[in-house]
């Protein structure tokens, strides 16, 4: 058993790092797009608002696997082939945006109306108010949700081995096939994810504490 652990610890760590990198990149992109979509959802023209709310509903209503498969396999029907990496990134971002939009929207809406009023009474322009008054406060209330999105997305990366991306899960399944030792390999993946998830949670907590100093 221990030689399996020794043999697979290296490749699995590399796979886990790939998962982590994909998570970080996709969450970063989802945050940027999510802010824009949230602004569109709150302040854009009506059709845009409806479009964005549909998008959110669909992303949240469909199983993750199905979304990934639609991007990777579905588009093959029309002759569009994505590499596993491209498909994975596309999906992770598309999926992440469905969640970040709502986080930013409710974060912004949770800032009391009195803050907008006070800023307006001082003559602060709309965008300055959003940037200097509303957004910094919203960010603090949003941080816990953003942390859980990072964890959620990290866990979602386990799915992309299904379309052939060689990450931690891929290492484990192919290892389980060749060595016939799933009893060791899958708990190893589980452990890797426990460490990463709890680590992210910890970082999130520290950031929350820093950001909420004024409270």
């Amino acid at each position, binding site marked *: 058993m221990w030689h399996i652990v020794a043999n697979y610890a290296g490749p699995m760590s590399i796979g886990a790092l790939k998962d982590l990198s994909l998570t970080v990149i996709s969450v970063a992109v989802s945050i940027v797009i999510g802010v824009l979509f949230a602004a569109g959802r709150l302040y854009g023209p009506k059709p845009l608002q409806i479009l964005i709310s549909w998008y959110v509903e669909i992303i949240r209503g*469909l199983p993750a696997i199905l979304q990934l498969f639609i991007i990777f396999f579905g588009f093959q029907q029309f002759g569009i082939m994505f590499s596993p990496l491209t498909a994975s990134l596309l999906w992770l971002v598309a999926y992440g945006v469905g969640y970040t939009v709502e986080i930013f929207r409710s974060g912004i809406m949770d800032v009391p109306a009195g803050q907008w009023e006070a800023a307006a009474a001082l003559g602060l322009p709309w965008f300055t108010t959003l940037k200097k008054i509303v957004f910094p406060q919203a960010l603090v209330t949003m941080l816990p949700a953003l942390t859980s999105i990072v964890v959620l997305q990290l866990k979602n990366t386990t799915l992309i081995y299904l379309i052939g991306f060689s990450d931690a899960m891929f290492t484990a399944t192919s290892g389980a096939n060749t060595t016939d030792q799933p009893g060791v390999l899958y708990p190893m993946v589980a452990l890797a994810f426990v460490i990463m998830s709890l680590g992210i949670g910890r970082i999130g907590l520290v950031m929350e504490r820093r950001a909420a100093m004024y409270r």
Partner: protein
Amino acid sequence: MHVLWVTWIHALPNFLLGLKVTLEITGLALVLALVLGFVLALGRLSGVRVFEFVAMVFVEVIRAIPVLVLLFVAYYSMGQWGVKLSGFAAGTLTLGVFYATQYGEIFRGGILAVDRGQREAAQALGLSSTAIMGKIILPQAFFNILPPATNQLSNLIKDTSLVYTISVTDLMFQAYLAGSNSFQYMDDFLLAGVLYFAFYIILSKLLARWELNVQRRRA
């Protein structure tokens, strides 16, 4: 040009069989999750150090592991250790346990969110702690619990799709199978999407109506 409807009509009978499996797993896993979740919540609120610690570690660790990995542990790893479960049993068990940790936290949060004064008032009246929980705290916690609980139910429905990876013939399995036979993946996945979405919408509307009814009765 292919015709979407033709593919769909061909696929539908098998898809409905798959949907039935999906419904069964959802229902069974939900029952397990609610019961175990309540136990976990009570454990975390018991005031007994050991229970609190065990429940806390259990929740934190299970929640940190992706459902897919848990499924593989339950199906393949446990199989190697001598506990051979069918795909259906492993899937139900895994989803039940994973969502128990989610529901446990929801129950705990809902109970804690009830105003302290309510407990104090009940204690001042000399009610027993069972009566305080059953008659005072839980009825009020209900409205804190229901919205996030509904949310998690929709997550549970979606996550049942993962069981196709341990060869359960659920809706996702049927969609993938039909896709790889016809190569019209998009058509088949879209149909699966419609069915999942319909399930999700119907269920959330029903739950919303239920919540409204309870609220009216209480108002």
